[in-house]
């Protein structure tokens, strides 16, 4: 299966990707800005995400929350999301409302600042603090997705700090910060606009040129600090966290090459071999044969700069101690390092990936997001169509070599959650380097 892709760059630097598919009269508009929490300056953790909220608070010709209302009134769905190194905004609308969706995105890219006010910022700050409480602080294990990067990247590294940010830093954010961040990062030459679905490329191009063409190029985004890190951690890392949870849960992360590298595909296949579905090793060994885990999975963070992370995520079965769980997960990693994987295991993983690739791309929003992703990180949306071949090129020998290179004990960071009541009082936080 091949997704049709047309690509052009406006004189102001906006990378535009078009993908025609007339199956249904709907179209997805997807805008990636190449900015995320990694771009935040010291004392402003969480700002990229707070800023994403502010993009729904109106622009010169759109009232607060009118963006949401307009798209929903058009019969569309929409949202935005912030990640370590990108922020995206997207809507899927009936295809006869494409112009409206583009106009809304262009108005906020061109004319956001006149709509920014202190009361709006104050309210969204409260909303984000509640989002933090809901997704991080009041959830068992909810802190894992800020503790794990903090454990795995050195304090000076742009991926070290929390994406959703600290309450103090959110309090410090000002309208001046909004203006500066907007002018620096929300520029056409720092964005990819993808339109996928029931679209006439000639008409779409004319709309894009009319709405986005006049927006001036940015001043050039400031360079990120150096993202380079040593090849591996160099020594085992470990942190134990007492949490308001019922069962122990362990995350074991390894530092691996970035998204898009050959090793990334080896890692992705290995993550399926170890942790995807019933036939995976973790399910067969940890959940079924040994009966130490109630659930187990494995994934990569998919970071395209510096270094990516390969993560095993395993939750204990009731009455299984944290030490037993932790030892069992490390033993599985030791086993794959020592003995590698079989071709049958690779074939299973690749077969699952192929089906997932086709089924997920039935959705216009998903097609658009993947095109934006490859255009943003690698400058080439056509790479989407190369994905199945890159997976099929992975062999058992490659995956085994990957495990030997990257999953050794000195490249494992262990983040262990233990139920608060059962942990000893003086072991609340323990970091071994």
């Amino acid at each position, binding site marked *: *299966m091949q997704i049709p892709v047309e690509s052009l760059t406006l004189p102001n630097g906006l990378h535009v990707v078009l993908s025609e598919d007339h*199956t249904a009269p709907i179209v997805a508009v997807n805008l990636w800005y190449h900015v995320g929490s990694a771009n935040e300056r010291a004392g402003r953790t969480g700002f990229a995400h707070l800023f994403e909220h502010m993009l729904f608070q109106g622009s010169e010709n759109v009232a607060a929350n009118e963006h949401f209302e307009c798209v929903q009134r058009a019969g569309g769905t929409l949202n935005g999301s912030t990640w370590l190194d990108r922020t995206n905004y997207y809507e899927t609308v009936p295809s006869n409302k494409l112009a409206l969706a583009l106009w809304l995105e262009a108005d906020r890219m061109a004319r956001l600042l006149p709509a920014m006010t202190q009361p709006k910022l104050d309210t969204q700050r409260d909303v984000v603090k*509640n989002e933090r409480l809901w997704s991080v602080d009041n959830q068992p294990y909810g802190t894992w997705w800020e503790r794990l990067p903090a454990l795995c990247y050195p304090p000076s590294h742009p991926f070290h700090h929390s994406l959703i940010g600290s309450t103090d830093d959110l309090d410090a954010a000002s309208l001046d910060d909004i203006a500066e961040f907007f002018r620096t990062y929300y520029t056409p030459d720092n964005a990819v606009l993808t339109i996928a679905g029931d679209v006439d490329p000639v008409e779409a191009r004319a709309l894009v040129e009319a709405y986005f063409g006049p927006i001036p190029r940015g001043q050039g985004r400031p360079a990120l600090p150096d993202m380079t890190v040593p090849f591996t951690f160099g020594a085992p890392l470990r942190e134990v966290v007492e949490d308001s949870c019922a069962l122990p849960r362990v995350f074991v992360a390894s530092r691996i090459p970035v998204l898009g590298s050959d090793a990334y595909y080896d890692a992705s296949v290995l993550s399926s071999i170890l942790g995807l579905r*019933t036939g995976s090793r973790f399910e067969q060994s940890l959940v079924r044969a040994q009966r130490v885990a109630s659930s187990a999975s494995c994934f990569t963070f998919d970071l395209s700069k510096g270094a990516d992370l390969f993560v095993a995520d395993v939750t204990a079965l009731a009455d299984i101690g944290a030490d037993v769980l932790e030892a069992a997960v490390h033993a599985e990693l030791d086993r794959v390092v020592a003995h590698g994987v079989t071709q049958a295991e690779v074939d299973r993983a690749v077969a699952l990936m192929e*089906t997932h690739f086709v089924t997920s791309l039935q959705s216009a929003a998903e097609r658009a997001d993947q095109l934006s992703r490859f255009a943003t990180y690698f400058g080439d949306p056509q790479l989407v169509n190369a994905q199945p071949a890159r997976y099929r090129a992975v062999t058992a020998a490659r995956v085994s070599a990957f495990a030997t290179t990257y999953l050794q004990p000195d490249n494992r960071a262990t983040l262990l959650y233990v139920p608060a009541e059962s942990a000893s009082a003086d072991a609340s936080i323990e970091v071994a380097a």
Partner: protein
Amino acid sequence: MMLDAPARPGPTAPRPYHFPRFETHVLPNGIRVVVAPVHAHPVVTILAVVDAGATRDPAGKHGLAVLTGRALSEGTVTMTALQLAERTESLGTVLDTGADWDSSIVQLTALTARASDAFAVLAEVLRQPSFPAVEMQRLVEERLSDLTQIRAEPRGLADVALNRLLYAPSSRFARLAGGDETSVATITREDVVAFHTEHFRPDATALLVVGDCTPEEAVRLATMHLGDWAGRTPPAPVPDASPRFMDRRVHLVDKPDAQQAEMRLGHVAVPRAHPDYFPLVVMNAILGGLFSSRLNLNLREAHGYTYGAHSAFDWRRAASPFEISSAVQTDKCADAVREALHEVERMRTHAVSDEELSLAVSYLDGVFPIRFETTAAIASGLANVEIFRLPPSYFDTYRAHVRAVTAADVLRVAQTHLDPARLQVVIVGPAETLQPALEALDIGPVTVHPPTDELFAD
């Protein structure tokens, strides 16, 4: 420097859309084969839906239907659990099996080239599961682990407590569909085998085939693999869906270490097949279904109490719960409850504005094609037609039904089916600070429960 903005554009002419055409073939043994050919992508979803939901659990065996559903993928008469997983996953697909209140399902999505092999696997799982004792024991232990997790988590506690308090103790709906520690511990392999034998029958089964497949091929495969399946299913029970309380009460579940208050307001409403379904869906969109709903604009955008506030009907064949849910800043919890109640009251006292009505209607109308982009979504929609016994024209008339809803309809259904005087309010959070604030609201008696209270220990 500000750029002059181009004028806000209007829509162009809409392109037509219709829900995928489907054909229904009833095999001689009663199995309904519903086929929707969609050839856009080389992929097929096969979904078997069986009239074997948790409402059929025998007394004292709560959780049997859900456990049976989960156990279907644990092996067949010709394959162990591991062999079944290897067979399925080497075909690049995954068996999704399970049960909810009204039905059990077995589902998979495969590439066209592997669809007929995948069909054979699905049919064997449906008809001839082996329920190995060792796997059954493991599933029970995993359920107990799940319960431990649910009871430690504020959202889980709030959801369990609400359903326990909405429905009378005699109702199956007051207990978790998946069963509790006591009931699950009594379930034996023989119970599972008996449940499967009794309820997994061709006349209780609809097989939905959606995607890159012709009706002839789907019927041929169904006949080959399921044509000689025999037996008849017992009639569906009429479940007790009576409410527990007739007056408004506040139930505070004390979680002293909670960082936020989980808030639920709800009462038992009407069954899915109610004639007021479309006005209720529009009413709910305005109250708490959309981002621009009254609840979200009030609690989130005007006050910043929360990351989000929503309302929904949890539709089932029997009288279904209406629920408002949010997670709010603890010191604003009483304010949030007051505002939520105010919004429910307001739905019943004043007609919605033209603006609000047109937003909800045009959203539900316009988003309809976006809901059915994938073969899995289409199959799921067709499964609802089977489970809720909706007319075959349901999807072809859906948009017209939505567009026909008026502000007077919305007001009428709010007055008929929303009852603020019967709402049960469930809060999970630190009682020390929440109790005085909730009592000061004076909206009903406040009872404080420890999270381990017998009342919630399903």
